[in-house]
């Protein structure tokens, strides 16, 4: 395959970025999208130019590190697929592909296609856990959990923290991400004790980090590589509102 690439280049956090055009030949249709970029970088090195920086690690769709918007869509055209799992067979010979970083206030660009997503970690640090000190646990089978509940918790827990939901949202909201974690933990009996506290603290942290509010656009669900459902947002809203009301009444 032959491709034309239009890629966002930005030297560092404080520089102005711009799109640059590249052309690339002999791309195998079995190559992954990132392998295609590897080839481009090899070509750039050969020409004594600075290669394109992008985030990636596992290259098997699970670490959540890869993050780029391809032809306007976070993670590109395939449904439920991360950039690293996207293969060139889904593009046409001669096609022009536009590649840019996640765009969101809470995810500043660090270089080229690399953004800073530490705001996600700060949401998790605020309440994305069950307090269970090492060594304090009871026997695992003492807490029977109906299979349906365990399965639902697992569905929500499948989030890889990539940030595509934020990149896709016109408000750059992190509700799908936060909802996924809250649903995972709040659904389980082990997570009930801290349910209210967790919902409040995580939503607060989300707002503090500069993410926007949710206006039910649904773009997040459409691009999520792990098919996290909008239900998690409903769940989060419910738990958040109950907690807020209780908090108000307590005062």
């Amino acid at each position: 395959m032959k491709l034309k690439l239009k890629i966002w280049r930005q030297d560092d956090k404080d520089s102005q970025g711009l799109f640059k055009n590249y052309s690339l030949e002999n791309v195998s249709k079995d190559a992954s999208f990132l392998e295609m970029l590897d080839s481009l970088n090899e070509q750039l090195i050969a020409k004594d130019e600075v290669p394109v920086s992008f985030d990636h690690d596992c290259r098997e769709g699970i670490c959540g590190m890869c993050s780029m918007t391809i032809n306007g869509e976070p993670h590109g055209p395939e449904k439920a697929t991360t950039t690293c799992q996207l293969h060139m067979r889904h593009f046409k010979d001669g096609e022009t592909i536009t590649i840019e970083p996640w765009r969101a206030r809470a995810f500043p660009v660090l270089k080229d296609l690399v953004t800073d997503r530490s705001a996600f970690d700060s949401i998790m640090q605020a309440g994305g856990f069950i307090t269970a000190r090492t060594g304090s646990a009871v026997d695992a089978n003492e807490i029977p959990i109906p299979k349906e509940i365990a399965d639902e918790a697992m569905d929500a827990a499948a989030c890889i923290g990539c940030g595509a939901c934020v990149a896709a949202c016109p408000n750059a909201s992190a509700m799908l991400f936060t909802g996924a974690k809250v649903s995972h933990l709040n659904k389980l009996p082990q997570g009930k004790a801290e349910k209210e506290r967790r919902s409040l603290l995580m939503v607060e942290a989300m707002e503090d980090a500069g993410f926007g509010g949710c206006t039910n656009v649904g773009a997040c669900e459409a691009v999520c590589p792990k098919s996290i459902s909008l239900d998690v947002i409903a769940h989060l809203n419910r738990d958040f509102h109950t907690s807020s009301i209780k908090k108000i009444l307590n005062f």
Partner: protein
Amino acid sequence: MNLDPKIPEGPLSEKWSKHKFNMRLVNPANRRKYHVIVVGSGLAGSSAAASLAEQGYNVSCFCYQDSPRRAHSIAAQGGINASKNYQNDGDSIQRLFYDTIKGGDYRSREANVYRLAEVSSNIIDQCVAQGVPFAREYGGLLANRSFGGAQVSRTFYARGQTGQQLLLGAYSSLNRQIGLGKVTMHTRHEMLDLVIIDGHAKGIITRNLVTGAITSHAADCVVLTTGGYGNVFYLSTNAQGCNVTATYRAFKKGAGFANPCYTQIHPTCIPVHGEDQSKLTLMSESLRNDGRVWVPKSKDIAEKIRAGHLDPNSVAEEDRDYYLERKYPSFGNLAPRDISSRSAKEVCDEGRGVASTGLGVFLDFRDAIQREGEQDIRERYGNLFEMYNRITGEDPYQTPMMIFPAVHYTMGGLWVDYNLQSSIPGLFVGGEANFSDHGANRLGASALMQGLADGYFVLPYTIGNYLGELGVSAAGSVSLSDPAFAKTEKLVRERLNQLLAIKGNRSPRSFHKELGQIIWDYCGMARSQSGLQEAIAKIDELKHEFWTNLRLNGRLDNLNPELERAGRVADFIEFGQLMCRDALMREESCGGHFRVEHQTDEGEALRNDQEYSFVGVWEYKEDAKPVLHKEVLNFENVQLATRSYK
């Protein structure tokens, strides 16, 4: 080099509890005076950092990714072992211990393995308490599956994402401690050297991967949980950033490196597609519970399949060779990894391989789908089938999957004693980075167990003991003004500048690829004396070329992934040679190490217990060959036997 394993006295089953009792405790009020560095945030690192912080120590934790949650533990699919015996199928600590020793081909230390089996149950309890959504039965109790090399169902799993869920569990405990201010997390930081003061590990040098800043960090002790070195092969199931740098730098500072040649080639990976391939994807071995492995009996049929002239489904039963079931009737498709991988290589060497390259065998679900229905199979392996489909474009419900072995895990690592302390005092090593529990071959679902055992249940005690021995007056006494920091920092900076200054013609990746090919060809599934000698010579040449012909663009003080890669490749090159030396030294076949000179008439591995029942530990020598030391393995509780899975 002091290789005293410090195995506690007494019967095997009492060693750990007695040892825990005998260890020093640090008074809770004094713990906050100590500072511990944990490099790595995978299962071993996150769990250790969180548990140490819970106990009250101050912890700094480092990882090269942008979040601790992305450590490569996240990619583990299949499951985690524990001797819970929830299935009432005869499992016990004793049996898990025995299976692990046998699976490791009698090349691991009894006392460590027993402790691992002993704490395995606590791990599951801990993870459930954290909210890890393990698979459950309809009654609400935990479900189990069986895994290669075991005849009981002791594997706990969370769909095909067990590693992810366990890591998210550990990450959540870590987050809680970060939120409480007990752990300071340094993401996008790579450790580039270890700092030693008065013979003890007291700090590290890192590079901030975003700004390029090179910084010193001081502590009362250092823990390395930096994962395995499988990427020495270039193509592997590891993440792109997995490296040997942290452990190799420690090796260069005097830590013994144990059994580097013990590497595991996993039998069920997706075959290579072409030149620009950058990694190999594992299909969880749990697939072997229901999939049947076969190749055609004849070369002719195999050739037709390769050329696309014959649909594998139409190959008649009598023309199929279910070679694992034939050769190992009692374990069949669940034969251990090394055996399964080597068998696949054999049939492909005979010209009976499938896939366009001839390097592939079938893993066929036809019978399982007929027996249990597509729905059941979908429930069990749906996400794995999807992943396969995404990568290859083929549908495994219709056409048999194709698999081929790939490098997956490294049993070798920094040598540690029973306390997981390396040969450098104050340097502790956990998870895949140490050599400790798997001998010459690791059983499926046992790495997650070991990482969490080390991090939750071993290191927090043994580190406390070390710190207790230092005494409170020493706590926090290491200062960055110690000249050792400035000196090491300077060396790190010089090395990076040297890499940037070569200005040759070849990219870091091209060197990595070439190294990987050498290691795969000569130090992969089958190794020979002449091949290994050749590899050692070739690596010398490659090293020379690297340091004279490398081309790097970009700056030191900016995000520069090629510079990162170059640094890692430089270490892999030297380390690859160490691996070959170790493989050459070990004149026997055991576990993942197969020397063609040492096999039975039937082609099975031939161990040499008389001469090689030891851990091979290498000591670095400046400008000279590394020196071998031996830790002799004493087996008091198991009888050494020929490993048989027939």
